[in-house]
């Protein structure tokens, strides 16, 4: 039902008169072309821009995430390196500042440990190992003097590289810690090693203080992927983490991967130089992209709403414009047919006037001759009045008079076809029309009643057009009625400045579906009997032209009533459509 209401008039229109150029008048196709083309041209840049914006924004946000992560990893690596360097330099300072002999002294070493803890903290023991790998002095919680490390890997490394930083291990204390050892070569080319065990607490604080967004985590693994200390989300210390060990790089690197659960994560890492440690920062990508998701959601809605608005506007404008073209075309068709119809009527009028004129002269002769016969009977005594002959002459004279009336009416009618606005008598026009159709009414036994009240004034209008209007409507009524029908013509005032003329018949009536189309050009239900479908459309056009209005009410099987409202002041209506729904 809604579809029917919003369906434009041109949608189901088929121009019966367009012939081989029918495609040009396919308004549905014109509408489709206009709508699709406009929608395409309008939507394409919008969608294109939206896609570009989407990709650029997403890339920018992802790039920003990677950059931020990279910066965080770099800064943290610097902090960790500084932390380790601080301790390394402290040990180096100690071996340079103290002689080997001093360091062999347990009290001295104990004092150094105390000072170290005061200044740096987190040093749990100190040991001095000679070149044979034997720990010759030790201060700390364990009794490790005399222990020999010569076979251990770390000892070999520190001998070769002068420095060793271990990864985290439990050791004898059964608590995670790591070791820094520095080698000091003596003047006699022998050497000793100062070795310090460091707690993890200070080291861990450096990472736990980090502000990490996106459910981020920062932790340290060694080159085998063993977690070195607990982090925000990882507690499996000294166990292998489920992430693969990132490949070595001297610089900070960031890449995207996935965690054990398959969630996308951003991984940033940095190898800490001269240590077995790798700093790793992971962030949940979904969490990081949350602001982007919000923007994307808004972008999507903006796009969707824009598309809907554009489509509504495009469809609305296309419909409006094509409808206007359709209306203009219909107006053009109507005008062409009216011109054609008016020309036809004018030709008929001229023919009728010529015929009437030619007949009037012989009629006048018959009239005079018959009159003369009557005069002879009347004035000359030698022609005795013969009642029968008198009757015959009277009959001829009355027939001539009747013919005269017909020719006068014919002339009167034809003459007004081209006459424009003038003062008219509605009664006289209706009388003329009925005069023409009177015989047909008699033939079909149609009773015609005219109710013409006295208060209807003469007014200015186009007599010729009114004649055509009434002739068409009365003719239609006759066609709708069977023998013995009844035609009522009722004239009344319609407000102060108009008159109403209703022409009602008790004929077959018009169905609801036909009612909507009766004023359309070429619509006919009488095509088999020669109907052109132009009568009512032309009637409608004529009524519009003289500034009037026409309405129709009908019930199938009961009859039809056409009501015409005519203004008492002549004036054309502007901007009227060619057809209106009957009411």
């Amino acid at each position, binding site marked *: 039902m809604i579809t029917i209401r919003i369906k434009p008039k041109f949608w189901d229109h088929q121009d019966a008169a367009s012939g081989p150029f029918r495609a040009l008048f396919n308004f549905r196709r014109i509408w489709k072309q206009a709508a699709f083309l406009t929608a395409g041209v309008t939507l394409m840049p919008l969608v294109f821009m939206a896609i570009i914006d989407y990709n650029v924004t997403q890339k920018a946000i992802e790039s920003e995430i990677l950059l931020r992560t990279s910066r965080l990893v770099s800064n943290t690596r610097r902090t960790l390196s500084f932390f380790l360097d601080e301790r390394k330099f402290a040990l180096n300072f100690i071996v340079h500042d103290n002689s080997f002999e001093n360091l062999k002294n347990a009290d001295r070493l104990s004092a150094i440990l105390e000072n170290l803890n005061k200044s740096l903290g987190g040093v749990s023991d100190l040991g001095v190992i000679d070149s044979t790998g034997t720990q010759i002095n030790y201060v700390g919680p364990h009794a490790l003097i005399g222990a020999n490390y010569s076979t251990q890997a770390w000892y070999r490394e520190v001998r070769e590289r002068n420095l060793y930083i271990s990864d985290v291990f439990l050791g004898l204390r059964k608590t995670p810690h790591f070791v820094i050892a520095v080698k000091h070569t003596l003047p006699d080319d022998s050497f000793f090693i100062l070795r310090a065990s460091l707690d993890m607490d200070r080291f861990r604080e450096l990472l736990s203080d980090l502000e990490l967004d996106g459910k981020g985590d920062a932790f340290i693994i060694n080159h085998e992927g063993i977690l070195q200390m607990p982090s925000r989300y990882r507690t499996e210390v000294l166990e292998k983490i489920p992430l693969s060990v990132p490949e070595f790089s001297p610089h900070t690197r960031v890449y995207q991967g996935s965690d054990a659960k398959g969630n996308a994560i951003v991984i940033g890492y940095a190898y800490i130089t001269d240590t077995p440690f790798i700093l790793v920062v992971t962030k949940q990508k979904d969490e990081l992209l949350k602001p982007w998701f919000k923007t994307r959601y808004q972008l999507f809605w903006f796009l969707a709403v824009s598309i809907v608005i554009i489509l509504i506007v495009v469809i609305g404008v296309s419909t409006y414009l094509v409808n206007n073209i359709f209306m203009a075309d219909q107006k053009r068709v109507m005008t062409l047919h009216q011109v054609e119809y008016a020309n036809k009527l004018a030709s008929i009028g001229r023919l009728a006037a010529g015929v*009437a004129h030619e007949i009037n002269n012989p009629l006048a002769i018959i009239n*005079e001759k018959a*009159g003369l016969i009557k005069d002879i009977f009347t004035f000359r005594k030698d022609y005795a009045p013969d009642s029968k002959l008198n009757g015959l002459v009277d009959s001829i004279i009355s027939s001539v008079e009747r013919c005269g009336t017909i020719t006068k009416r014919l002339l009167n009618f034809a003459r007004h076809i081209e006459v424009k606005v003038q003062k008219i008598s509605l009664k006289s026009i209706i009388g003329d029309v009925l005069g023409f159709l009177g015989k047909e009414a008699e033939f079909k036994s149609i009773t015609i009643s005219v109710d013409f009240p006295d208060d209807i004034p003469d007014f200015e209008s186009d007599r010729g057009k009114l004649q055509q209007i009434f002739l068409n409507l009365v003719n239609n009524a006759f066609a709708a009625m069977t023998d013995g029908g009844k035609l009522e013509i009722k004239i009344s005032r319609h407000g102060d400045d108009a008159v109403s003329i209703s022409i009602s018949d008790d004929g077959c009536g018009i169905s609801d579906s036909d009612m909507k189309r009766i004023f359309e050009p070429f619509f006919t239900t009488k095509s088999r009997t020669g109907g052109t479908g132009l009568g009512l459309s032309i009637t409608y056009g004529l009524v519009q032209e003289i500034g009037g209005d026409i309405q129709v009410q009908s019930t199938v099987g009961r009859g039809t009533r056409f009501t015409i409202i005519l203004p008492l002041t002549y004036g054309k209506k502007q901007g009227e459509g060619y057809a209106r729904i009957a009411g």
Partner: protein
Amino acid sequence: MRVLLVDDEEQLVSTLAERLAFRGIAASWVTSSMAALELVEKETFDLAILDVKIPKISGLELKKRIQTLHPEMKFIFMTGHGSEDDFKIGAAEAGKDFYLVKPVKIESLLEKMNEVMQQGDDK
């Protein structure tokens, strides 16, 4: 009263002249404007009944020419091309003359003749 009848239909004017004669009105008739002009030069008429459409010189033109010779003459026009509106327009053009549409009843014609003759001689 002497009447001049001018119409290109001889049957019409001759019969009409005869009918007027029955009523004591002397009527001469001609079937062309030239004949009418020749006749009015010789004879005097009180009234002329003219067809509007006479070949060569129309009824209205003929009236003007006759009036130059006989300004006192009265005129009645008849036409076969007549409707009610023609009558009004024709009557307006003919001034105070009368304008009748064929076929004309003799009674109507006589009535109009009397009326036109009673009009003041102010043309």
